[in-house]
């Protein structure tokens, strides 16, 4: 599960696109890749369009990524969640933890908004 | 076991009485005359049957196959009771048209067939 580091107008962003499922088998790899990527950036977008299923270990891994991003003063958001994964998020109330968007555009612009509001507050 | 037979117009009605099991399935096999087999309009009335085991069931099914070979059909008359349960349980009921009245079953064959 690679995390690509891309430079955008909203800064450097790590983009991960998990496929099929995040579960006990691949969640450790996700954590490892995330730790590596965290050295380069603190803004992350998870493209979940191809994600079909999450088990509790996978969900745990996602939440730990979120926490790490937050403690690095960064952000992590999701987009393109399919109805199945949405049910799992709702059931476990994970939908209240993550900023969730419908597409890449709105996910990206959320970073922009945050940047501007930070600049304003400075 | 006794097997009664009657002809209602051109329909052959077979009425086994008593027990139908391995010891007497060959009677059932023989009960269908060649003529009736060709004619292909058979009703098997099971309302007087008291007991049916798997070989009896097998005999009834093989009779159906014989009739079907000549493009005929065999209808069953079977009141809702133990005997019908055997058909339901084994899903053999899917192979038959099952009636609760013998006369109606006999009349159900399409008319106008030579």
């Amino acid at each position, binding site marked *: 599960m690679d995390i690509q580091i891309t430079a955008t107008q909203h800064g450097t962003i790590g983009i991960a696109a998990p496929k099929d499922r995040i579960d006990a088998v691949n969640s450790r790899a996700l954590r490892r890749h995330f730790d590596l990527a965290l050295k380069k950036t603190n803004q992350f977008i998870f493209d979940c369009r191809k994600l079909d299923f999450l088990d509790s270990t996978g969900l745990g891994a996602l939440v730990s990524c979120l926490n790490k991003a937050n403690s690095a003063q960064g952000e992590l958001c999701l987009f393109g969640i399919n109805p199945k994964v949405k049910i799992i998020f709702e*059931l476990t109330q994970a939908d209240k933890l993550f900023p969730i968007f419908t597409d890449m555009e709105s996910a990206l612009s959320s970073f922009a908004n945050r940047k501007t509001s930070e600049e304003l507050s400075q | 076991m006794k097997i009664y037979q009657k002809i209602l117009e051109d329909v052959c009605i077979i009425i086994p009485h008593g027990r139908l099991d391995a010891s007497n399935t060959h009677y059932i096999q023989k009960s269908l005359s060649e003529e009736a087999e060709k004619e292909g309009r058979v009703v098997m009335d099971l309302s007087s049957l008291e007991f049916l085991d798997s070989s009896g069931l097998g005999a009834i099914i093989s009779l159906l196959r014989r009739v079907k070979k000549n493009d005929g059909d065999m209808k069953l008359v079977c009141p809702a009771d133990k005997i019908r349960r055997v058909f339901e349980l084994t899903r053999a009921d899917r192979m038959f048209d099952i*009636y609760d009245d013998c006369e109606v079953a006999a009349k159900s064959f399409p008319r106008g067939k030579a």
Partner: protein
Amino acid sequence: MKTLLIVKEKEFSWLGSTFQNCHPLATQICKKPLLEYFIDFSILCGINDIRLATDAPTEELVDQFGQGSRWGISLDYSPVRETDELDEIIQKNSLYCKDSRLLVVKGFCFLHYDKNIDYKYFMHNVEPGELSSCETGSVRVMDDLSQSGTVPASDSPTLSLSPVSNVGDIHRLSMEILMDHSDQYVLPGYNNEDHIYIGHNVTIAKKAKIIPPVMIGNHVQIYGETVVGPGAIIGSDVIIDAHSSVQDSVIFDKTYVGEHLELKNKLLGGNLIVDPDTGTQVHLEDPHLLSQVKSSKKSLPLIHRIFHQITALLAVIIMALPYAAFALILKLQKRWLNEKETVFINSSGRTVELVRVTIKDDGLVGRIARSLSLERFPVLIRVMQGKLALIGSRALPADEENRKVLDEYQAYRPAAFSYAEAESWPAEDSDWEIVERFHLARRSLLRDYLMALKAVLNSFN
């Protein structure tokens, strides 16, 4: 007056993939099986005879509803063909339908009525014809005597039908009845407080919160800090762990709901969770989130299994020497073929690999080997291990098609010898299932023993 219910398998086949643990007509709406609503309504109409005409198997229904004596009525079942139209079904049940006014409910649907209304007068006097219909069904009164009745229009009670054609319908109907129409039906459970129905043996932790309207089944445990309701229908044998909430949701029987979960506008049963609006289904894999509460599964009694295993062990001991000798001789002649085959060992799809032996020799040696059932030796070892039964169903090769067969064949019990060969029955290929179902429903130790003996004797000839 009599009731004739007509339901075809194709009308509820959509249910098959969701909550499979009961017959579709036993699907619960507000914890009450669909069929029971029809029974209740028939009783309100003063009807004592109900017949269900269906092309679907009814064993489970018979187990659950029997002959209807629990309701003081007579309930029976009539098998029909998938293609039968209404008049053909009436014909097939002509003895039942004769000389009586008929209430005919056709289709997989829900009939709204009100238990406080006396329908007897209405039903006796209304003109024959359709009373109501919906996308998936209709209800009508039929009369072969065609006497026209008269009912003052103002007095006629309103009847309406709702389709039951997807999981969303089950959810919607359940919620509607629970929220607004619970006084129209007889619903299960004690009802001391308005809009709260609770079954027996229910434990609710002190810190749990119950907000009406709710229905809770029997043997339910609700742990601390949990919020149940408004709009919760909870089946029997359900556990809801701490810090969870259930709202506008239906939980079917035998379900465990883990901690810190939020159920809102969902249906769930076992580890399956369904969104009623979109129909999206998810099977969760974490038993600590959602799972099926274990119940003792119908399996072969221990003594049966031991009998099968010990008999196989004895057979293996007796056959070991001849097997070694004959296999060697025939292998040298290249007339002993081993083939591996993966077969299903139960109806839920577990598999095991078998070695199938074919003896391609019609000479004396081959005949003796076959009559000693030596080609079954490798399979008997599987029986000894308890993977297969000694006598039972034909072992079905593990493929997609057979997987579908097994979905409808819960009694499936693969074995070294099959009932079909014990009976030398039947001639046609597709009929083996019939004889297997016959014997599987009646199996006992003695019967199995005799059938196994028969199968062995058959191979002698």
